[in-house]
């Protein structure tokens, strides 16, 4: 049951460029597309990768593609499967060069895939520890601020955020985002671990 038999690229692109539920409908469709997965595995094995490498690249590639879609950096200028396959191949090539993974990074550039620093297991553990703290801090943030953060994570504009959160104008959305930002340190309270995040 291949994707092309069930959904045209046009339809898939329109889903991937829609709202979150539509995006995830499209992503789920691609995720369950066995033929697409086989194509990725076949291509990477054809380039000299092992099955295990190819499976890893497929999985990591899908995570990256997912982010591209949610952040709207997939612009639908090429077929979703072509775009996805090229990500997987790049992930595999990158892994061969020794980099641990590629990701889009809000911190550096919301558009291009940015390679993280070469991750040793120690560096990865350090990063994971920090992630744990970030999760703890997130749990202390108000629902309202978390909602705004989530919409920002999905790359919504301030106009869209205002609309979705019932604020009267983009300026009000900026004010709200600013207030949330200011409250962060307060949310961390006296916890020295959380304070160390700043």
């Amino acid at each position, binding site marked *: 049951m291949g994707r092309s038999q069930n959904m045209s690229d046009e339809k898939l692109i329109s889903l991937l460029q829609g709202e979150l539920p539509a995006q*995830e409908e499209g*992503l*789920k469709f691609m*995720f*369950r597309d*066995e*033929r697409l*997965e*086989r194509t990725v*595995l076949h291509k990477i094995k054809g380039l000299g990768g092992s*099955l*295990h490498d190819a*499976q890893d690249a497929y999985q990591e590639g*899908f*995570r990256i593609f*997912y*982010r591209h879609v*949610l*952040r709207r950096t997939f612009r639908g200028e090429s077929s979703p499967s072509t775009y996805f396959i090229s990500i997987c191949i790049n992930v595999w090539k990158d892994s061969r060069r020794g980099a641990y993974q590629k990701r889009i*990074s*809000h*911190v*550096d*550039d*919301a558009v291009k895939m940015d390679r993280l620093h070469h991750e040793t*297991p*120690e560096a*990865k*553990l350090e990063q*994971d520890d*920090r*992630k*744990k703290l*970030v*999760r*703890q*801090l*997130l749990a202390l*943030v108000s629902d309202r601020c*978390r909602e705004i*953060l*989530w919409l*920002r*994570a*999905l790359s919504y504009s301030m106009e869209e955020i205002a609309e979705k959160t019932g604020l009267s104008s983009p*300026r009000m959305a*900026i*004010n709200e*985002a*600013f207030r*949330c*930002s*200011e409250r*962060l*340190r307060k949310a961390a309270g006296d916890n020295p671990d959380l304070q160390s*995040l*700043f």
Partner: protein
Amino acid sequence: MEKQELFIKIEDYLDGKLPEAEAEAFEEQIAADPALAESVARQRLEREMMEVMLGDHIEGKLAEWENTKKKPGKPGYRNWPWLLLPAILTIAWLAWPTQPTEPAAPGVSEEKPAVEEEPVETFQQETEAPAEPAGEQNPEPAERKEPAKDQPIAKKSPSDQQLLALAGRNEVPPVFVSGSFRGSSQADFKAASDALEDGKTDEAIRLFSQLAAAPTLTGLDAANNLAYLFYQKKDFQKAIPHFQTVAGRQDYDYQEQAEWMLALCYLTTRQFSKLNPLLTEISTNQAHRYAAKARKLKEEVNSMQ
């Protein structure tokens, strides 16, 4: 500059949208103004929070979708009963007491069901297998109960190869501690680390084993390294006590990773009674870095058992 404007400017700066000269000037301002530096740090942290939110959301969705996905080249686990059918029929036929061709060829009756010997990668072949014994279904199905009692078919468990493959897909890079030369045994630890670095695995195991018994942090580091060394040698039984030691130390840097690897050791050694509660423990701990993986593995293991 108004606060809102500053907020937007910081966003643009972090997005790399400011022209080069303006960005450089802004960086100078940041360096000179602690309050501004803190605002930048806060907004940078918010981006990390967004990353974590997105990452967790994606992992959750993928785990959810994975349950309903058929692997390419492999049938879905829900199809297992059908895959077992040809093996059941074949064995029932071979063990049939009134079968006229009773003296089976030597060795045939000792064969395990074919499905148990199939490696994961060739599992796909089994989907086509039902056609093979079609002509051998002559014995009435109602009288199959006796032979079935002697065969492990009804309690078919995954093969060693399947378990190894599953563990292999879930492995994480080993963490060999090499820089923590603490206490009086630091020279010994360094010697063991050097052996490890030189690829002298057996020597490294011998040296780390001497250190691992000590109730010190060095002993814990040695146990950690030993666990991964045994795991790499696929000597999972020997890796288990060392992973247990490390996993039992909540304050140890690599405790969660050891806990996860301990689960994989239980998996490869078929210690499901220990594996299941451990996976439950990991998966229900939201802060555990392997919670999502544990949930997924648990589902896979449950569908195999």
